[in-house]
């Protein structure tokens, strides 16, 4: 019997290796897999490359991983926040490598990895500083039908940590509102995807017409008690 539910976050993350590339879903307050990030901190893997839209806030979550010195590199689109001081300090002192990627290129590079695409030409970023490699050399460009495009490569990951809403034991997932953000594409791009859900449902309970992430992209699911995201709270 296929059962992707595991009983704890620590069990789901136990095989995370040093040097792993880890995708972490979430945008703003929506879709951040807080329990999985805390689990990664507790698990202890080091020398990580993180892929996220941002680079952490204050000292919680992703910023706690940075502060603990566990991250070598971060690939993101928007590290600067009013309270991103942990990232800011590590970046300025050269202790953390940053690969800054326009948000849509980030999403498409993740999607490309999951879809088995060897890269793509995009107009986004052409002629800008972000159309250069880390060493300052220009990325490959091509004129297609009179428009200039930049070649961007896929971003693969060893592990994706995502937050979903409902899931079944085959790993089929649905999300809640804008918490979907990077979840579906990160699930496709990682060799192992661990998702949290607030509701564990029986096979057949998710309407197959509305499954957002089919279970083939998910390797482990952990049920986490509902956390209130509505001002009035959400009843479990």
């Amino acid at each position, binding site marked *: 019997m296929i059962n992707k539910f595991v009983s704890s976050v620590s069990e789901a993350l136990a095989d995370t290796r040093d040097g792993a590339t880890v995708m972490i879903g979430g*945008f*703003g*307050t*929506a*879709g951040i897999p807080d329990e999985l990030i805390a689990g990664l901190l507790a698990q202890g893997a080091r020398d990580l490359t993180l892929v996220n839209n941002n680079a952490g806030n204050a000292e919680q979550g992703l910023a706690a991983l940075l502060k603990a010195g566990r991250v070598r590199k971060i690939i993101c*689109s*928007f*590290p*600067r926040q009013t309270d*991103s001081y942990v*990232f*800011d300090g590590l*970046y*300025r002192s050269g202790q953390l490598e*940053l690969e*800054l*990627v*326009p*948000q*849509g*290129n*980030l*999403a*498409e590079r*993740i*999607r490309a990895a999951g879809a088995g695409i060897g890269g793509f030409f*995009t*107009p*986004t*970023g*052409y*002629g*800008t*500083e*972000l159309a250069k490699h880390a060493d300052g050399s220009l990325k490959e460009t091509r004129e297609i039908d009179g428009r200039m495009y930049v070649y961007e490569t896929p971003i693969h990951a060893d592990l994706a940590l995502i937050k979903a809403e409902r899931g079944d034991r085959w790993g089929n997932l649905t*999300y*809640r*509102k*804008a*918490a*979907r*953000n*990077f*979840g*579906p*594409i990160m699930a496709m791009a990682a060799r192992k995807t661990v998702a949290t859900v607030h509701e564990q449902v029986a096979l057949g309970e998710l309407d197959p017409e509305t499954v*957002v992430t089919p279970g083939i992209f998910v390797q482990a699911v952990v049920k986490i008690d509902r956390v209130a*995201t*509505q*001002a*009035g709270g959400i009843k479990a």
Partner: protein
Amino acid sequence: MSYTRRSKDELAARVVQDIPEGATVNLGIGQPTLVANHIPSSREVLLHSENGILGMGPAPAKGQEDYDLINAGKQPVTLLPGGAFFHHADSFAMMRGGHLDICVLGAFQVSATGDLANWHTGEPDAIPAVGGAMDLASGAKQTWVMMDLLTKQGQSKLVQACSYPLTGIGCVKRVYTDLATLACTPAGLVVIDTVDGLSVQALSELIGLPLSS
């Protein structure tokens, strides 16, 4: 002759004049967000938010916030009936694929031919952050900029060539400012309107570039 600058709300209302019924629009973080407040209820305009919302509604009443339902600026919003959620790759495909009619962005500088600089001051100690600015600037069918014409030091933000790092080349079609509305064209700036009392000649002197009208 004396003239008065457009207030931020007047500027937002001026932008709204040019948004047609049925348009799909993305409003950038900051000043462009104000545009939503001025769209008349008689005009159906679909707002897109890059984090995965189409059909975004106004801010919720106090106490009704849902932090799974936020805009690109990470503020709580609502969803209109008919609205939809989608993942990030689809959201940016809407921009890059040319499905979005208009995006309205803020800017540090815009060149006469529509180059945009709005993501990075380029200072050595600055933390760079780009978000969706480059995708929006090069992806929407029309990119409009909404900004004050002059910096606090009185320098024009409309320039011959941007000195800040570029967001996109030749991507801005129109610039809405507190003093005038202009079009960026391959041949340079074209005046669309100015505030009462400001002549095209006086505007040209403020900007320091030739203008056609």
